[in-house]
């Protein structure tokens, strides 16, 4: 079912963890809340689940208002039919796997025979039927994660909330389970909100990604859009864009900007950036070309020296110190690797349309002003 969050606020004592947040999730959609540790992702999710009482705003699931601070509506968590998979698994160690998964069905007072059949069927779905009768404390981390998932799936929730469900697993398992989660979500048509601080996970699992910063949502877009057009320098930085340089204030119509800390001009190919006076250019390392020899003429072509070059498998990661300019991260094709060593003179080239001019922070979404949709350059 679809979920509508309106003007949600949550305070812990004096501290406001969620600030006037609004968000809509369509039926069957997978929305990923992506953000740094402490930005309020779990808090938002716990409000939807009903484990925290928001100090303002409302949440509607399907046609039911589950909480509305202004109207004193507050449905208790067990009546919301919301599934929540905890980061800590929260699988009950004093029960068997089957008992864990049967629990929500027992709470729904389903007939005994149905409970068993349905629980086993759900375990089958997550590939755990063979451990149904094991004690839950005997399972591996990945298995526990699946039990937690199966337990929530068994209740056929209106919305499924997953709070960093894979963060306690090792990298390999994480990638396998990521794919499996996406398959289940699509197959079952689950409406889900997925919390993570791992951008890879977000890109793989999301229909839309909501980037959360400091209790607010600062960008809401498809994974592709998010990746290509981060709305601000701080989002770009969070998404792993390593070349971010402050620029001097410039007129929006200029097609060139000057770096704040270096005597270097950079050409852009768009002029519609929203300049705030605190702007940066952001360049993904894979968009920078590096070649040996002196720079040919052309926009954004600079001479420099290789500071370090590291083999990373699919590519080589170099840092090039541009003469009179910043050190730039470059992902070079591995075939070129042999050519670059520390201290080599090279030149780097950068297509102006890969340079994004971004404000430091996405504009704050104010309570009374309708929110402009933050757009990339």
């Amino acid at each position, binding site marked *: 079912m679809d979920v509508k969050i309106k*003007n949600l606020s949550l305070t812990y004592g004096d501290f406001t963890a969620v600030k006037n947040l609004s968000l809509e999730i369509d039926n069957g959609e997978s929305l990923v809340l992506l953000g740094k540790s402490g930005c309020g992702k779990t808090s938002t999710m716990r409000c939807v689940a009903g484990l925290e009482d*928001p100090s303002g705003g409302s949440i509607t699931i399907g046609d039911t208002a589950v909480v509305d601070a202004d109207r004193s509506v507050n449905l208790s*968590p067990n009546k919301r039919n919301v599934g929540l998979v905890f980061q800590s698994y929260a699988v009950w160690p004093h029960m068997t796997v089957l008992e864990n998964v049967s629990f929500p069905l027992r709470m729904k007072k389903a007939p005994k025979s149905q409970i068993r059949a349905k629980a086993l069927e759900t375990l089958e779905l997550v590939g755990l039927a063979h451990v149904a009768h094991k004690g839950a404390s005997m399972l591996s981390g990945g298995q526990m994660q699946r039990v937690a998932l199966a337990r929530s799936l068994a209740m056929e929730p209106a919305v499924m909330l997953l709070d960093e469900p894979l963060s306690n697993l090792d990298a390999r398992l994480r990638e396998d389970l990521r794919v499996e989660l996406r398959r289940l979500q699509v197959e079952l048509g689950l409406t889900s909100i997925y919390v993570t601080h791992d951008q890879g996970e977000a890109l793989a699992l999301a229909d839309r990604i909501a980037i959360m910063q400091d209790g607010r949502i600062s960008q809401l877009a498809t994974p592709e859009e998010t990746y290509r057009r981060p709305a601000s320098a701080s989002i770009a930085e969070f998404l792993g864009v390593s070349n971010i340089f402050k620029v001097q204030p410039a007129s929006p119509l200029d097609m060139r900007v000057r770096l704040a800390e270096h005597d270097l001009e950079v050409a852009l190919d768009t002029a519609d950036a929203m300049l705030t006076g605190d702007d940066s250019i952001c360049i993904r390392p894979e968009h920078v070309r590096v070649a040996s020899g002196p720079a040919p003429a052309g926009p954004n072509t600079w001479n420099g020296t290789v500071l370090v070059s590291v083999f990373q498998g699919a590519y080589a990661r170099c840092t090039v110190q541009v003469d009179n300019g910043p050190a730039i991260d470059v992902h070079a094709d591995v075939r070129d690797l042999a050519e670059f060593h520390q201290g080599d003179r090279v030149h780097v080239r950068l297509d102006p349309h890969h340079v994004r001019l971004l404000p430091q922070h996405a504009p704050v979404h104010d309570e009374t002003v309708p929110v402009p949709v933050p757009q990339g350059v």
Partner: protein
Amino acid sequence: MTELVASPGARKSHRAKGGPRLRPARVVPSIVVLAVLAVLILVPAALVALASVSSDVPRPGNVTGDLTWGNFGVLAETGTRQAMTNSLVISVVATILACAIGAGLAFLAARTDIHVPKFVYLVGLMPMFLPSYVGALAWSLLGSPNSGLLNILQRDLGLDLPLNTYSIPGMIFVFAIYYAPYTFLLMHGSMSMMGPDLEEAARVHGASTRRMLFRVSFPLAMPALIGAAILTFVLIFENFPVAQVLGSPGGIDTLPTLIFRLLNATPSRGTESAAISVVLVAVVILVTWLQKRFLAKRSFTTITGKGVRQKKVALGRARLPIFLLVIGFFLVSLVLPVLALVVVSGQTSPYMTSLSELFAPGGLEFGSYADVVASDTFRSVTGNSVIVSVVAAASGTAIAFISAYIVYRSKSVGRTVIEGVSMVPLAIPAVVLGMGLLWTWLVMPVPLYGTLAVLVVAFLAVQTSQGFRGIAASILATDRDLEDSAVMLGASRIRAITAVTVPLMKAGLLSTFVLLLMLSMRELTVPLYLYTSDTKILSIAIYDAFENGGALRQAAAMSVIYVVIMFVLSYLPRVRSGR
């Protein structure tokens, strides 16, 4: 679809500040629990405070007398000042001894190559399981000036050492023995957790073992020792039973015995008792506050908490003599007292002049046990004890669970108040709280006084803090997501608690229950105020039997049975957790 939802007409009257409104679920349980705790603890405490500034003690229909400061005049009396001096001298000296013994045994068991360290560990711990006043009673059988078994033995051997447990040194000795385990436990924990790196650093820099110990290890353990010392001081300072058993025959008063004696004097001087109580409580609060400060500082001891393997200190040639000293302590603290109780329970001639009489035919005969077990009195007091203790322990565990749940798991109003009130009994000595409870249940318009129920209520009051602490530790160790996930899966909060939280806390609940059961079984002070002839319990019956002389054999036999019960009880949780 990729739009952030605009917020049309977001109201200005937004409840961003001020937090969520109060729901009944956040208020009702708190109020109920606070009301229960208030009746159990605050009312008795308030009545004592009230009586101290009142011309008359609380009576049914007349709770307050006229306001007066005159009761505090009792503090200037010689008797009171003597009792204060006695209390201080006994507590300070006994604390120093107890800490020396406890810390020494802890060091030996944890850090040296002493013989059978497990045995040394038990020696350090075991005196705790003998209720201190039973130890005192047993030592009065051993060391009373005339008929004490040890003094009879002296006469047999032609010795004449001054041995008298009915004296201040005698009391200090008994206190030191039975309060050493507290220091032992705290220090053993601290010494076996101490990270070896600091010590090794000292060794690397060329310090000898001895210098390392004195320069590094002991200073590191110092905060724990100070904490233990203050705890021990408070426990001894407020102890009533031992002082009563050993002090009253020789006319030695401490503050607790004085409070009890004044209240029971004819005519009763209850308001003056209350005045002294206020002073006693003030001292305890002051000292407890000091303890808090020291324990708070304890974090600098770099306790790593990893089960690190430490170097054992070699005792060298002192190894055997030191081990013999440990055995000596074991004899004095446990073997001799229990033996004395056994001997007296089988001793046929009430007036013995030589121990050889015991070995004459018919000199020792254990028919007394059959008599005791068969007697109606024993059956009824044991029955009472079991009923009162089980009910008090079970309801105490339940109250502690509910309070700790509200404090640590809910957002209810008044959480900190509940926690605070639960800790109040720590600051009120049993001898004071007992007096307050007596007045409370005489005054209350509920006919509880004179029933077993009043004893249950009293035990609940006295043991609130211990129960709360036990459950709090366990609740904090249980991940709350486990319960929340049950709620998310459709269970009501109550159902989630019973289906998930309680089963997961089973071990903690059980050990708290057993702890409260033990405390109830050994509690003497509070029931002494509240029992009637129909509601005697085992601890009272034993105390009574010794006080009134008379059937000493039966009294001793009863004590032996009691001691056996106490050891079994304290062993139970170990058996369970061992698995």
